[in-house]
């Protein structure tokens, strides 16, 4: 489904404000150079790792492993991306190649 124009504008505005808020927050709070609470520093260190882990799973939420094609296109493309990225560290090869591979798998091999 697609959001209406006003819903889209509202959503974009909210996300823009929230994004800007996270970027500006340290400057707003710690401009006076007090010490940053250690708990916050700790969260800033570990959350980025955990959030990307969460987002990877989030992307897989609609894959069904129990019926044809048993998540095979996703598994194959993911295997390709991990290996090629570890090998070459090139966005074009890993992401670009991964998407092309996935689209081909979906449209021709497992169609």
């Amino acid at each position: 489904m697609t959001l209406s124009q006003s819903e889209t504008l509202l959503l974009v505005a909210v996300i823009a404000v929230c994004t800007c808020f996270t970027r500006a927050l340290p400057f707003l709070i710690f401009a006076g150079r007090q010490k940053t609470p250690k708990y916050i520093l700790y969260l800033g260190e570990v959350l980025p790792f955990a959030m990307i882990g969460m987002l990877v799973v989030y992307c897989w939420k609609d894959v069904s492993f129990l019926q044809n094609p048993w998540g095979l296109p996703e598994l194959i493309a993911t295997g390709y991306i991990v290996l090629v990225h570890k090998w070459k560290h090139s966005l074009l090869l890993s992401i670009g190649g991964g998407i092309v591979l996935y689209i081909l798998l979906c449209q021709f091999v497992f169609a």
Partner: protein
Amino acid sequence: MLQVFRAAAPRTVPVLAGYMFLGIAFGLLLSSKGYGWSVALLMSLFIYAGSGQFVAVGLMTVPLDIGMAVLLTLLVNARHLFYGLSMLERFQGTGKWKPYLVFAMTDETYSLICSTKVPKGMNKGTFYGIISMLDHSYWIAGSLCGAIFGSLVSLDLKGIDFVMTALFIVIFVEQWEESKDHTAALTGVFVTVLFLLLVGRQWFLLPSMGGILCMLTLLRSRLEVKYHDLVTE
């Protein structure tokens, strides 16, 4: 100004390639969901956050849920908090550029600014400002190209959604290589899988975020030391 531009532009070439490519992918994805180039422009101009915008596309294909949008955006962008903390000092004395520098601090611009010295005699604010503006313009240009191309050519793009998965997998791999300890990354994966299985795909995100926060808080005494080196680099 021209002199600053000449000094700054070459530094941004690696970002040019990355942002054009990811921007095009974002534009294509957005247009495949039925949104025009103006939405891509608005998002890349005012949100200007790679992973944040990909997550936003997900929110634009389901009924409007502002609360979820706020929560997801804050958590996905939690890393900016840490970027900001490490930039508090560096951005001092950047004058009128400062608000824009803070707004435009993406992962790529952050690492560019961290690794680039301001040439002698050059104004710090202007130098960082031009770098940030160039990066921002690559991102906008890329997403516009993708959105316009996507609306002109009626490709069968079944499977293009995978671009978001691919992006997060690549970030995951890079973070995995960057850190010796993988507890935080694995916590994110396993807690989310657990709640996906427990409560189903419609409601799992919120409890997952809560669960991750709890787990990381419980593991603090163990993890704080291990992850500290990484941040003070």
